[in-house]
């Protein structure tokens, strides 16, 4: 029997104490980079493709408007304006825009950016009507949301 017997009664374990920290870090990363989904998708739409897109940098100034086909078949196949998960008629757009503007802080109001997520098959008439409404309330910054191009 050896004279120097190493006494090793405890089993080697990997410390797991840093694990929650790592996961929390991931969690915070996602919370910062992502925005909460505001509502169920009430429409489906496929934006057109474009090559020369730019990424809109200031997320807090963005308000999204959608033109798409209702996902619920009972509502027909026609294109509808949608904002924050609710269908809007053309004359409801102006009040919606004004409401969105007041939700921003004072300095940001003139900088409000409207991101239009419209289906590629929408007629330009619908887009033109919307643009006219935007001009009426001086919301002149518009982004046509596109998919990364062909």
């Amino acid at each position, binding site marked *: 029997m050896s004279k120097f017997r190493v006494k090793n009664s405890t089993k080697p374990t990997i410390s797991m104490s840093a694990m929650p920290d790592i996961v929390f870090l991931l969690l915070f990363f996602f919370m910062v980079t992502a925005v909460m989904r505001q509502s169920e998708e009430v429409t489906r739409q496929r934006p057109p493709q474009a090559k*020369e897109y730019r990424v809109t940098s200031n997320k807090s100034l*963005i308000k999204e408007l959608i033109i798409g086909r209702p996902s619920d078949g009972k509502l027909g196949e026609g294109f509808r304006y949608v904002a924050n998960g609710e269908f809007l008629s053309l004359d409801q757009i102006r009040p919606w825009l004004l409401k969105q503007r007041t939700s921003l802080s004072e300095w940001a109001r003139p900088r409000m950016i409207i991101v239009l997520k419209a289906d590629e098959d929408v007629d330009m008439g619908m887009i033109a009507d919307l643009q006219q409404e935007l001009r009426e309330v001086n919301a*002149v910054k518009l982004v046509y949301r596109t998919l990364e191009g062909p």
Partner: protein
Amino acid sequence: MYKHSRKPVELNTSSMADIAFLLLIFSLVATTISQDKGLDIRLPPKSEFEQELPIQERNLFKIRINGNNQLLVENEVRENAEGLSTEVKAFILNNGRDASSSDSPEKAVVSVKTSRGTKYAAFISVLDELKGAYYEIYGERVGLTSGEYRKLDQNNPEDRLLYQKGKEGIPMNISIAEPDF
């Protein structure tokens, strides 16, 4: 008196990771990472009295798209927008050389007019070409490709400076006219 053991009390924190994972998965499911990629334009502000800006015929590059998504580019019929960006670029950078093309980049205006029945995709494909032409011009002035120019970050002071320098003196005069029928 009762003597405490010297070994420090350890909390079992192994379930902490589970809780954190649960939160993580919840936030992954409940959020969308917004991709705000798109073509940005500035609409003309509304004015009480419609003013007609006198634009010389030579400084105007006219593009019309009809209800069948056909193009009329400077009175010439086309089926698609391909190759439009090189023509627009030549038009903008003409600087008075060709008498039928623009006087200066500053005065050059590209006008797009659609019909109410035009498909959005057709309009976007034209706008894409126009933006491409301008970004290429801007990029060339600061020694970047159009793709690099587009990706300049507005929040980064150095990039912002390059961005400003690129478009200085050449406004993106893309006019989107109201459809008339």
